[in-house]
């Protein structure tokens, strides 16, 4: 699924780290499979492009087959978005400074996850993706993923970085607007309310309770 549905070819260390995310609660090098194991499990259907150290399917016709038979991987983009966001919410990834100028060696997947989670999440998000995304977007400009997204897609003169090279004023709503995630925009506009900024009142408590109820129903 990752090889056929990712937005760009994944490097060996990116893919290996990706496969160690599910079932983990933080970055865990012990949970990362070796590339040899991965290739052996693929029965020869994927290969390493030696010149670029990226993973690809052995034949273009296999890519076409996988793309045309959508029942093989149900909801691949939601699953990829969920994995990217789970990764971003790992305590170690959250602890990286948003002023870093290079990708931490312990987190090779962080650039890909930062640049493409929104594309995979799309305009209509599943409940799991929404919960994980809202967690990431809360304090977004303090998270390394906001810097990596800006470096990837925005012209240098428009990158809102402070003197230390950290994004400034690039909040969750701005990130979601840039990525085009409509569901998240609506959710953020609803929760980013003037009511919420005031001391907790009876009305606020009712609103929050109702919101929690909404979440459960979905």
């Amino acid at each position, binding site marked *: 699924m990752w090889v056929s549905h990712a937005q760009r070819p994944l490097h060996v260390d990116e893919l290996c780290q990706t496969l160690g995310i599910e079932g983990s609660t933080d970055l865990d090098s012990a949970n990362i499979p070796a590339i040899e194991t991965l290739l052996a499990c693929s029965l020869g259907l994927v290969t390493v492009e030696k010149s670029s150290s990226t993973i690809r399917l052995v034949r273009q016709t296999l890519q076409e087959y996988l793309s045309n038979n959508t029942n093989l991987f149900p909801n691949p983009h939601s699953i990829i978005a969920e994995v990217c966001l789970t990764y971003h919410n790992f305590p170690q990834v959250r602890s990286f400074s948003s002023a870093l100028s290079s990708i931490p060696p312990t987190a090779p997947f962080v650039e890909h996850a930062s640049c493409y989670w929104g594309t995979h999440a799309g305009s209509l998000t599943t409940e799991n993706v929404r919960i994980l995304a809202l967690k990431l977007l809360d304090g977004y400009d303090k998270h390394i993923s906001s810097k990596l997204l800006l470096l990837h897609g925005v012209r240098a003169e428009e990158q809102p970085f402070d003197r230390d090279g950290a994004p400034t004023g690039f909040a969750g709503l701005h990130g979601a607007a840039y990525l085009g995630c409509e569901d998240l925009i609506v959710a953020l*506009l*609803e929760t980013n309310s003037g009511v919420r900024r005031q001391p907790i009142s009876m009305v606020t408590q009712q609103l929050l309770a109702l919101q929690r109820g909404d979440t459960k129903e979905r």
Partner: protein
Amino acid sequence: MRVLLERSGINSVAPSTKYDSVALLWAAENGHEEVVRILLERSDINADGPDRGGRTPLMWASGRESEGVVRILLERNDVNPDKPVLADITSIL
């Protein structure tokens, strides 16, 4: 929640939230038409609100050749396509 907000007449948004207007710039920058529409539905968002350099959402959108967003913005009465920026150029140049 939206229903309750509407019924109770609670103003769900703080007045003149710069935060929300900047979101319009970012949506325009990347050409997300539907997000631009959602943001423009809100009365507290200035459709012609400039960034710190004086560039408006229309300028951001036209700089990226986001034709759909440019159309949406030009259809509005409160967007001035001839608004000068500091360097006195217009967005259509």
